[in-house]
């Protein structure tokens, strides 16, 4: 016997008080960006005068399944899921859909064609731009790839894309991947050890470190710093964390991938409200690997941030303040404050 479909009072426009109730199941708050997601999401809900319930699963698929159950128990009208595990989340979608609740896949794609909307900066694109940036700056040389947690699906997607981008250059013999390892749980100190060991192994001859997020980039840079190599070696990152932006300003980190959170969160909230009210969405068709049918998607741009465009991107957006970003740069070396 399947769970009862008591969606009657759940779906459709709102609860007894007529207010739309959005359930947002997040996988984690571990990286700084997810805190920003949560804040932006909640703020926009408030602005749009809808109720929202946010749960965080501590990077545990089982807990996220429980969270979704609990959200459904609370009779939300629409479910937004930032999945910990894209594949496992499909069963959560099934459960919600069985009760007539529409589902938005937030930032990370859920491998299910039953979702109503996918709104995201695309993870594969992120992986690609990092590798492309490095390849542009260092067409020939020794590369170290520091992947994210091997248990994190997104880390694995980026790994695949990075390798795809670098493949030709590797085959030509232009670049040599001297070490490629997973930083356990995305931990900076794991990245630190990986790069330390790679430096030892190659007698400091390393030209680029493709780190999959800013935390691991930070670890990698610590290792480079002790050998006086920070700034001389290309280091990539992702998330535009404050610490990373500071390192970019100092010239220690080469780039980070900035994913403006506000448009993402706002877009998700607005789309969710429309879905709850059964209104039409403005979205495009999207066909992803691992999903049978095309799905509706809103895809947002990601922005590569490096020393050149700090002012025009993150600071202009109000993502970070000028003072914060250039905190470690002597006054006289700072660019003019816009």
């Amino acid at each position, binding site marked *: 016997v399947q769970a009862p479909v008591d969606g009657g009072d759940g779906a459709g426009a709102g609860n007894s008080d007529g207010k739309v109730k959005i359930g947002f199941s997040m996988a984690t708050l571990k990286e700084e960006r997810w805190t920003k997601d949560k804040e932006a999401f909640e703020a926009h809900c408030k602005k749009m005068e809808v109720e929202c319930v946010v749960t965080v699963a501590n990077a545990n698929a089982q807990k996220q399944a429980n969270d979704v159950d609990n959200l459904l128990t609370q009779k939300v009208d629409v479910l937004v899921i930032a999945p910990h595990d894209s594949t496992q989340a499909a069963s959560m979608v099934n459960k919600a859909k069985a009760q007539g609740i529409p589902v938005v896949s937030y930032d990370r794609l859920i491998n299910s064609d039953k979702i109503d909307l996918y709104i995201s900066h695309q993870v594969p694109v992120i992986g690609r731009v990092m590798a492309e940036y490095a390849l542009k700056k260092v067409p020939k040389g020794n590369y170290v790839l520091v992947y994210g947690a091997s248990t994190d*699906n997104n880390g694995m997607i980026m790994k695949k894309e990075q390798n795809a981008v670098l493949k030709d250059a590797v085959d030509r013999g232009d670049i040599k991947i001297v070490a490629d390892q997973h930083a356990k749980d995305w931990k900076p100190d794991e990245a630190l050890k990986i790069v330390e060991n790679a430096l030892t192994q190659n007698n400091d001859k390393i030209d680029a470190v493709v780190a999959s997020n800013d935390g691991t980039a930070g670890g990698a840079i610590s290792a480079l710093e002790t050998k006086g190599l920070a700034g001389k070696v290309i280091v990539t990152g992702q998330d535009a964390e404050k610490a990373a932006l500071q390192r970019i300003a100092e010239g220690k980190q080469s780039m980070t991938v900035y994913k403006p959170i506000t448009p993402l969160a706002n877009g998700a909230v607005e789309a969710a409200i429309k879905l709850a009210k059964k209104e039409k969405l403005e979205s495009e068709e999207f066909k992803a690997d691992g999903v049978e049918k095309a799905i509706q998607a809103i895809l947002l741009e990601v922005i590569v941030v490096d020393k050149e465009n700090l002012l025009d991107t993150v600071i202009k957006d109000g993502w970070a303040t000028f003072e914060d970003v250039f905190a470690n740069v002597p006054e006289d070396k700072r660019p003019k404050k816009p």
Partner: protein
Amino acid sequence: MAKTEDSEKKKLRTSSLRAYTMIGALVVIWLFFHWQTGSIFLTPRNLSNLMLQTSVTGIIAVGMLMVIVSGNIDLSVGSLLALAGGTAALCLTVLGLGLIPSVLAAIAVGVAIGFFQGFLTAYASIPAFIVTLGGLLAWRGAIKGISKSETISVSDPAFKAIGQSYLAPMGGWILAVAAIVLILFLAYRSVQNQKMYGEGDTSFGSEMAKALLPIAGVIAFIYVMNAYAGIPIPVLIFLAVAFFGFFITNNTTFGRYIYAIGGNAEAARLSGINNRAVVMKVFAILGAFTGIAAVIYTARVAAASPDAGTLLELDAIAACVIGGTSLMGGRGTVFGACLGALIMASLDNGMSLLNYADFTQELIKGTILVAAVGLDMIGRK
């Protein structure tokens, strides 16, 4: 033998003391959440969810209890769960085996690894902590290697049903009747036995009266579960495992040997118990339960991911300890372990319903864990 009877009751009383405090704690937690969640917590729907959310940890806690009582520990269950779940998923998808062979494969992996770790602990005398810490690393590595760190999704509806479907209400009532008959039969046999062995002063009536509480419990449970959708299949399996564990620890020679070995291994050996064989089997039982839990886990989320079950070992051990199990071995009950698992799941469920921030959840869970056991310690003084 009125005297024996009397102090048997007394002994029962002291040993159940912890169970009572913990039931009290559970009631307080439940009432608090019910009040705070605006009367959602104690609805049949949420209670059904709660039981569902208890089942995986609960099943493993029952096996863990036996391992801990025997004076050992198993840190590898989380990784083993991922490996066994992955095995089942691979059997279904890649190998295209049927439902039954896939489920059996998962359990077989659990049993085999349980035997292996038990063997290393019991026969090679390597401390269980080290053996299973090695297992924690190795089995996780194995499933990552096998699955190439990818999540394997399962679409077989029969398999998914194990984690996602419910026993029809009728089935629940049939079970209830069976359970009640069993309880009455046990009560009857107890009277018979006491007559046969010369303790004739327990009347039939009083023994039946004692059976009323469990019967009421069974009816209430089925009633609540049926009020939503029937008993979830995982909960059914959990109940079966718990019953099995209860039976093993209370009514079999094997169970007695587990307690004896944990209490004083040397005395047990000199009493003719083959400690090593018993310890090895205990690990195998936990392995089997982990295999079963892996199937449920995988079926619930319809996918096997290589990071399934991280930190599950701590949850299972904590469930046992909250339920009064001594980590030194020799003491602990299946009932307590299940109660411990339920308390932990209640905290998670309630705080998730209350939409607490994750750091608040961790703070509160940590505090309540310590406070619950602490109160209990004070109560026992």
